[in-house]
C-alpha cells in the first residue's frame, strides 16, 4: 500500500468504554406481555421448590429437587439416578428444539422475554426507575455531584438490588435440599456453610449481571446471538423498522405538506423514542443487528407516537424483509408461520417429547448389571470343579424394600453361592435390597468336580426377578474354563 499523507490512519481505540443505557418507561402491548412473562417466570422460580410430591416414607417429598447428597434428581413423577443422566440429554435436545422453533417463528423472543438475564435486568430496571426516576432523571442524577439526595437514591437502589440478588441466590439453594427446612435454617444461621457460600456467589453474579453488566452480557458473553444468526431465515418475524413506510423522515408538518403535493413522505418523525426505550441501547432503524433482543419495546414506543400524530401504528413491527418487498410491489403482508421449517421443528419436538415421556413412564424399577471377575478369570477348585466369579449390582428404584430372586442358568451342574445373598432351597439366590438403593453382590458359580466343559467360554444367563412387580432383568455373560 502506498502511504500518502492522507492515508496514514490512527489505529483507533483498543478498548471501548461501555455506553450507559438509560431505557425510558413505556406502556403498550409488548411491555404488558413482558411483565406477564416476568411474573410467571419469577413465580415458577420461587414457588416450585415449595411444591410437595408424595414419594412414600423413604424419599423426599419435594416435587423438584436435585438431591446431590444422595445423587438423585426428582421432578414430579420422574426420578433420575446418576447413571440415567442421559435423560438430561433428551431434555437438552428438547429445549434446543423449542428454542429453534421459537426462533423460526419470532426470532430471538427467548432473549427478549424469557431469558433470565432479561427477566432479572428488567426487574432491576424497574427498581432503578422507581427509586431514581425515569430516563432523564437518571441521566441528570449521573451528572449531578454527590450530595445527600444522590447518596440516598444510589444507596437505596443498590440495597434493593442486593436484596433481590440475595433472594435469587438463596432461592437457588432451595432446589438442592428440602426447601422449608433450609428456609428455617438459613435465617436462623444454622444452614450448612456451603449453602451460604453458594447463595453468596449467586447473589454476587445476579447483582453484577442484572445490575451492572446488563446488555454487555448479550453483546459480548452470550453465544446465542451468534448461533441464532446462522439459524434464521427470511420468514422469521423480527422486530423490524418498516423503512418503506418510515423514510424519508420528516416532521409532521413537512409530511403533511409533502402529502398534499404528492411527494414522498415518511411516517418516521425522528423522535428517537424507539432508541430511548431500548434496553440494549440500539437504533432499530439501522436494521436487524446483534444487539436486538426482539423484545418489542420500541414497537410500543413507536405505536404511542404514531397514535399521537394520527398515523397508522406498527411502523415498527414483528415483520421481515419479504413483506417489505411485497408492500413495495403493492401486495399485502403474508406471515408464513406454518412452513416446512416450523412443521419440521414441531414434529421433532413432538417426537422427542414422545420418546422422553415413553421412556420415563416405562422406566424400569430395577436393574441388574453383571461384571465378570477378571483376576482370576476362572479358578480350578480344590474339589476339581471350575469356578467363575461375577460381581453383580442390583438396583431397586422403588420407595420400598425388594426381594429379588436370582437364577443362573446355561452351564450344567453348577452351584451358585454368595456371601451376600441367601441360598434358596431350589438353588436360586435371594437378594434383599432396601428402598431406593443399590447392592453389590459377589456371586461364585462352580461346576461339579471333573465336569467336561465343551468350550473355554460358555454363555451363562443371570435372571433377577422381583416377584412383587414381576420385573425381570436378564443379563447374559460368559463362563470361562481351561
Amino acid at each position, binding site marked *: *500500500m502506498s502511504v500518502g499523507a*492522507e492515508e*496514514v*490512519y*490512527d*489505529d*483507533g*481505540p*483498543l*478498548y*471501548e*468504554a*461501555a455506553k450507559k443505557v438509560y431505557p425510558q418507561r413505556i406502556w403498550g402491548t409488548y411491555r404488558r406481555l413482558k411483565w406477564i412473562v416476568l411474573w410467571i417466570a419469577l413465580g415458577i422460580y420461587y414457588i416450585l421448590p415449595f411444591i410437595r410430591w408424595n414419594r412414600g416414607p423413604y424419599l423426599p417429598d419435594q416435587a423438584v429437587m436435585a438431591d446431590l447428597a444422595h445423587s438423585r434428581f426428582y421432578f414430579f413423577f420422574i426420578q433420575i439416578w446418576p447413571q440415567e443422566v442421559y435423560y438430561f440429554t433428551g431434555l437438552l435436545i428438547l429445549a434446543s428444539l423449542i428454542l429453534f422453533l421459537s426462533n423460526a417463528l419470532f426470532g430471538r423472543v427467548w432473549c427478549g422475554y424469557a431469558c433470565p438475564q432479561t427477566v432479572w435486568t428488567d426487574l432491576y430496571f424497574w427498581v432503578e426507575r422507581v427509586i431514581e426516576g425515569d430516563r432523564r432523571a437518571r441521566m441528570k442524577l449521573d451528572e449531578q455531584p454527590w450530595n445527600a439526595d444522590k447518596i440516598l437514591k444510589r444507596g437505596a437502589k443498590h440495597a434493593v438490588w442486593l436484596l433481590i440478588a440475595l433472594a435469587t441466590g438463596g432461592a437457588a439453594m432451595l432446589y438442592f435440599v428440602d426447601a422449608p427446612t433450609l428456609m428455617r435454617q438459613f435465617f436462623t444461621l444454622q444452614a450448612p456453610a456451603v449453602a451460604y457460600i453458594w447463595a453468596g456467589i449467586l447473589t454476587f453474579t445476579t447483582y453484577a449481571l442484572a445490575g451492572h*453488566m446488563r446488555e*454487555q452480557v448479550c*453483546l*459480548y458473553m452470550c453465544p446465542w446471538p451468534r448461533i441464532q444468526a446462522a439459524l434464521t431465515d427470511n420468514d422469521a418475524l423480527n422486530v423490524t423498522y418498516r423503512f418503506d413506510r418510515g423514510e424519508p423522515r420528516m416532521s409532521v408538518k413537512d409530511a403533511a405538506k409533502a402529502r398534499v403535493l404528492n411527494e414522498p413522505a415518511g411516517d418516521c418523525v425522528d423522535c428517537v423514542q424507539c432508541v430511548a426505550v431500548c434496553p440494549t441501547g440500539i437504533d432499530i432503524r439501522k436494521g436487524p443487528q446483534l444487539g436486538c433482543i426482539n423484545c418489542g419495546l420500541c414497537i410500543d414506543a413507536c405505536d404511542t407516537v404514531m397514535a399521537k400524530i394520527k398515523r397508522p401504528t406498527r411502523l415498527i413491527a414483528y415483520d421481515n424483509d419479504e413483506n417489505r418487498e411485497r408492500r413495495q410491489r403493492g401486495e399485502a403482508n403474508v406471515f408464513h408461520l406454518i412452513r416446512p421449517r416450523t412443521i419440521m421443528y414441531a414434529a421433532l419436538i413432538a417426537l422427542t417429547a414422545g420418546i422422553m415421556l415413553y421412556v420415563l413412564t416405562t422406566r424400569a424399577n430395577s436393574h441388574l448389571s453383571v461384571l465378570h*471377575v*477378571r*483376576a*482370576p478369570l476362572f*479358578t*480350578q*477348585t*480344590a*474339589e*476339581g470343579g471350575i*469356578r467363575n*466369579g461375577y460381581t453383580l449390582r442390583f438396583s431397586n428404584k422403588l420407595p420400598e424394600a425388594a426381594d429379588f430372586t436370582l437364577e443362573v442358568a446355561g452351564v450344567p451342574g453348577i452351584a451358585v*453361592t454368595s*456371601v*451376600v445373598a441367601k441360598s434358596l432351597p431350589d438353588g436360586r439366590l435371594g437378594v*434383599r435390597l432396601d428402598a431406593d438403593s443399590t*447392592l*453389590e453382590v*459377589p456371586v*461364585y458359580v*462352580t461346576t461339579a468336580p471333573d465336569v467336561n466343559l465343551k468350550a473355554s467360554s460358555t454363555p451363562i444367563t443371570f435372571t433377577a426377578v422381583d416377584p412383587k412387580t414381576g420385573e425381570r432383568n436378564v443379563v447374559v455373560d460368559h463362563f470361562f474354563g481351561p
Partner: protein
Amino acid sequence: MITDPVQVDKVSGQTTTGHEWDGIRELNTPLPRWWLWIFYATIVFAFGYWIFYPSWPLASSFAPGVLGHTNRAAVLADVAFSNQVRKDMTADLQKASLQQIADSPKMLELALAQGRAAFGDNCAPCHGSGGQGQKGYPNLTAGRWLWGGTLDQIQATITHGIRAPNDADTHTSMMPAFGKDGILKADQIRQVANYVRTLDGLAPEQGVDVAAGKKVFADNCVACHGEDGKGNVDMGAANLTTKVWLYGNDINDLVYTITNARNSVMPAWGHRLDPETIKSLAVYVHSLGGGK
C-alpha cells in the same frame, strides 16, 4: 506516530483499524473496557495467590505462603474426616465377632468394601489383585487352605502370619529338607514324588517304582500329610490330593520341594494393621469363593 482522522468504512459505518490487504480493510471492533479490567483483576489475583499459597521456589525450599497450605495436609485432613464419618460403623466392626459380621448385611457390606481396599494395599502384591495367587503364593479363591479356610482360621493366619520371626503365635511348623539334610536319597525322592503325583490322578514317569515311592511316603510323610495325603491344616501340611498345587505339579517341581523344602513366609499383619481391618480382610478373603 501521526494520527489522522479515523477511517470509516462506508458500508457498515464502522471505523477500521487502518490495516489493508488487497483493498480489504479490517473493521475495528474493540473489546469492551471491562474485559481489560478482568485481565487486571487476574493479575491482582496472582499477587494474592503468591502471598497466601506456596509459590516461589527458593534455594533449598519454597515460599510456603501465609496460609501454610500443603496438599499433604489437605489429604490427611480428608482422611481424618472420613475416619470420623465412618467411626460409628467401624465401632460396630470392632465389637462384632466374625460370624456376626458375616450374618449382618450392613456390617458385611462395609467389611467387604474395607477388606477389598486393604487387600489391594497389602495382600495383592503376592496373592494377586483378585486373590488368585501365583507360584509360591497361595491361591485364596480355590478352596485349598494350608492353615484352614474358616473365618477364624483366616483371621488367625493374617494376624500372626506364617513363620513370622516377630510373632510368638505365628504358624511355625516346617517341612524337613529331605534331600539337602540327607534323610532321603535322590532316587527315593524321585519315587515318592511320582507317588504323590498319582494321589492327584497324574501319571507317573516310565520306569519309576511307584510302589517304592508309596513306602517312602508311608515311612516319612504320613505323620503330617496323612495316610491318604489329605494333609492337616493344624500344622499347615498341604493336601496333596487336590488339583491345586502351590509350587506346581511338574515332577521337577515336586523333586525340588521334597529335596529342599519350601517353607515360605507371610508377615504377621497384626503388627501393621488394626484389628477391624484384619477382620474385614478375613471376611473379604473368605468371600472370594474358597471360604469354608
